[in-house]
């Protein structure tokens, strides 16, 4: 087995700082040693190995862009992107765990929480001791979260929550849930803890995708939480959307990892697979596919890197994130499908990572803003006309 060296046709590495390279290599080595040898078993059993969450905490990559004051690393968004890339080369479910913990659960506490909330939750979440989840999507409200049903009402010193969330990564295993609910008609963020009365998080089963990731419902039946659990500093959709921007940014890098894994496997396979007396990599149709893969991966890398630098200097706009998420997931999914084809029948076996990445990417295409919703976000930016809704 050759050491994985990544795909770096345009010498992206020359644009990375030494610490960014070190973080990438740290995660890359861990994925090679701990994840790739065990991922198929985790998928077959349909569970997320608990020790992986702890290892992510020990490595210090959970919420790694958040300030050191809160037990995090204060690293660049490019470093975070590289971590997502390497994790997703292992599995999208693993990257999803880190995305949800860092971008969707820790980020809103750090951005919109009180100082007490930050000091209470962030260090334990950074270390992996506490797992977080993010409740926005509901059974009937996915792309249109603004019409969510979940409600919070004041009752003495408490808030009482009622409603249900769906498709919640980490829900069943989470110690802390960031839940978005309407309070007096305005979307607000609430911190719900695992043992709060009236809160349950049953696991959703039967997935053909993200099998090594926990997906859950969150159910609130007169769930009572103290008033100091509201995130004080944000109102409206801006709250969840700013979380999603960070997560989508990470996905734009993560998808490159899946794509690289598929490309790498396709290259190795086609070079060693002999048909009609020669390696199939020597045939033009196969080379055409490999060249296309390299082309798309390289474009995706440049897109993600430039976006990352903009994230770091604050000059980004959300539409740029939409384009990167949409493009890179789309190209990764196409590469996975093409790689399956190139592996022939072997492509369906779990000896190769192809079919797993392909199935995972179908979820990634849909979550965190579907492919089409991102098109509409760009359509609105281009034309100035929103096309999400109209009166019929």
């Amino acid at each position, binding site marked *: *087995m*050759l050491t994985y060296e990544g795909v770096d046709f345009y010498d992206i590495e020359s644009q990375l700082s030494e610490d960014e390279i070190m973080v990438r290599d740290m995660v890359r080595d861990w994925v090679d040693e701990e994840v790739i040898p065990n991922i198929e078993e985790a998928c077959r059993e349909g569970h997320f190995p608990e020790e992986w969450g702890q290892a992510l905490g020990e490595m210090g990559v959970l919420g790694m862009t958040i300030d050191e004051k809160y037990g995090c690393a204060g690293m660049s968004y490019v470093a975070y992107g590289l971590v997502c890339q390497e994790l997703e080369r292992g599995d999208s479910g693993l990257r999803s765990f880190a995305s949800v913990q860092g971008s969707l659960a820790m980020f809103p506490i750090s951005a919109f929480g009180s100082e007490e909330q930050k000091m209470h939750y962030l260090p334990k979440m950074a270390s992996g001791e506490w797992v977080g989840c993010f409740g926005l999507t509901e059974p009937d409200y996915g792309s249109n979260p603004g019409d969510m049903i979940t409600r919070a009402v004041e009752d003495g010193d408490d808030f009482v929550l009622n409603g249900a969330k769906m498709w919640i990564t980490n829900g069943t295993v989470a110690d802390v849930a960031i839940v978005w609910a309407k309070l007096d008609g305005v979307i607000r963020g609430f911190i719900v803890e695992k043992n709060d009365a009236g809160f349950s998080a049953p696991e959703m089963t039967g997935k053909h995708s993200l099998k090594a990731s926990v997906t859950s419902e969150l159910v609130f039946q007169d769930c009572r939480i103290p008033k100091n659990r509201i995130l004080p500093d944000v109102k409206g959709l801006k709250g969840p959307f700013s979380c999603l921007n960070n997560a989508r940014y990470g996905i734009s890098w993560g998808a490159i990892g899946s794509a690289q894994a598929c490309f790498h496997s396709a290259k190795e396979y086609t070079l*060693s*697979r*002999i048909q009609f007396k020669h390696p199939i990599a020597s045939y033009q149709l196969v080379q055409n596919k490999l060249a296309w893969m390299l082309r798309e991966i390289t474009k995706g890398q440049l897109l993600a890197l430039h976006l990352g630098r903009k994230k770091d200097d604050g000059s980004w706009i959300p539409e740029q994130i939409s384009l990167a998420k949409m493009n890179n997931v789309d190209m990764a999914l196409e590469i996975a499908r093409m790689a399956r084809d190139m592996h022939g029948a072997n492509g369906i076996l779990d000896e190769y990572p192809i079919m797993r990445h392909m199935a995972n990417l179908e979820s990634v295409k849909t979550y965190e803003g579907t492919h089409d919703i991102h098109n509409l976000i760009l359509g609105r930016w281009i034309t100035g006309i929103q096309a999400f809704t109209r009166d019929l």
Partner: protein
Amino acid sequence: MSETVVIAETKQGMLHSVTAELVSAANALGSAPTVIIPGTSDSAAAAVAELAGVGRVIACVGDCFSTYDAASWAKAVDTCAPAGIVVCAASQNGKDLASRLAARRSISVVQDVVAIDGSTLTQPIFSGKAMQNIVLSGDAVISIRANTFAAVGEGDGAEVTVMNQSADIATAVREMIAKANERLDVAEADIIISGGRGMQDPVNFVDLERIADALGAAVGASRAAVDTWDEIPHSMQVGQTGKTVNPSLYIAVGISGAIQHLAGMRTSKYIVAINKDAEAPIFKHADYGIVSTWEEALPILESELKALLG
């Protein structure tokens, strides 16, 4: 031409056969060497004196040679050995002693020499992925890989001098612990049979052990096997991060031939590969490849060897 000195290799007080190869290497450097034989007595010196091509023999006798202690060995041997090019075995302790001796004399040490052509010495670098050819510009200590120089035969008998030495031991052996694996070490063996992950289960290594017993071979393993199974200790690992071996015969069973495994055994004189995958890279490096499952091939191999070797 400066003098050539050979430090004889001993094993538990007895002369190691590789010494005859060291004399051969020293002869290739152009002279009949002075052979230093370290030991607690001069009992092994006579065996050295009988080797062809030996100039003279110095038995370097001292209590410090009862166990290997780098500092005292280097000090004692340094006192006995004349200046010149010093030739050691590229064994674990031989290389260690070579390093200390060279440092003591502030001269270069050149390890793992596999060829001598006139004044040019060749040593493998990058685990044998390339060769380095060098010329000495003065005295040096060189270590010689086993099985690369033809052993010298018997000679007329050289003069033996005994020099008593005493040196303080810097490290104290407190206890000898039996090696967990009583088998021949792969680094020492002339024949190695190694298993890879294709053996499916570590218990199947007993099939390799039976063949090893028939051949007097060591049992090795690929990195994949060592990483996968706790039962297969790292001491068995052949490869870039394991042991680099150079046996006469290397039999790879269920080993695909990853580049780092090849780096550890590619210089074996003969390589036999047994693998069910006809496209396994190991076959490109095998002198004799057998496309077969190990379950089918090993029983036949065992019975053939037993019939042949009794």
